[in-house]
């Protein structure tokens, strides 16, 4: 209860981020650290897979807001997948679904970063 773990994986030039647990004012630093680590490595194509994220408070949303401009200025983007009902609902309440591309599956989110010529 209340803990957060954040794993990352790479799929080509896309970095996959897997937060699991709660992102709130207590745990947000860990989430930010993992995102920053990718940016420091000049990896600006991020997919945050929220399949195991049960909860995100404004501290976590602030963290997303805090990096998106830098990411886009570097030709990248931060895209989200697998939001549960509560998390999707929070995004919609705040209008965040207008600011971020949200996909149903990780595969779709990864593909969205590939050139359109990619087969299938």
């Amino acid at each position, binding site marked *: *209860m*209340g*803990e957060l773990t954040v794993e990352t994986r790479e799929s080509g030039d896309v970095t996959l981020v897997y937060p699991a647990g*709660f992102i*709130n*004012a*207590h745990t947000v630093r860990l989430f930010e650290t993992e995102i920053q680590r990718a940016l420091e490595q000049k990896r600006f194509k991020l997919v945050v897979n929220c399949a195991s994220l049960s*909860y995100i*408070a*404004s*501290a976590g*949303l*602030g*963290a997303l*807001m*805090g990096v*998106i*401009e*830098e990411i886009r200025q570097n030709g990248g983007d931060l895209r989200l997948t697998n939001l549960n*009902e*509560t998390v999707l*609902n*929070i995004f*919609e*309440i*705040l*209008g965040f679904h*207008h*600011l971020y591309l949200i996909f149903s599956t990780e595969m779709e989110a990864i593909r969205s970063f590939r050139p359109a010529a990619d087969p299938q």
Partner: protein
Amino acid sequence: MSGSGRPVRSRQPTLSLAVPSQTSYLAMISELTRHMAALAGFDEAEAGRLALAVDEATTNAIKHAYAGAPDRLVQLRFDDRRDELRVEIEDTGATVDPRNMPSVDLDRYVKQRRTGGLGVHLMEKIMDSVTFRRVSGRNICCLVKRKDGAGGAP
């Protein structure tokens, strides 16, 4: 029944809680709120949103009113009334002036890379009413959610 000798109360007694001003308790407060919301008859999705609103109000008390000091107390009171669930979050820290609370402009927000100011906005979207008052050295943030499902978030 009326002769039983103990005072008749018109509603449930209030559940209250004093928690150290540390963010490590947020997850517990969130679980507790979810449970109280379920006992008050809210469905799971609504209970999750109420838990978020209470998390935000408690976070603000810790971060702003107490400026992060870990050795103070935040008081929470849950009052399950007939028509509404009422949650009060109280601190004895620095005065909150509700007029300082910024309204959120998402575009400006992103441009300026602000990372705060969302909490109050989120609370207002979730609850039917969010009020702040100062009473004898205490800041009280009062959150109200009606049970009829009218108003508030979808």
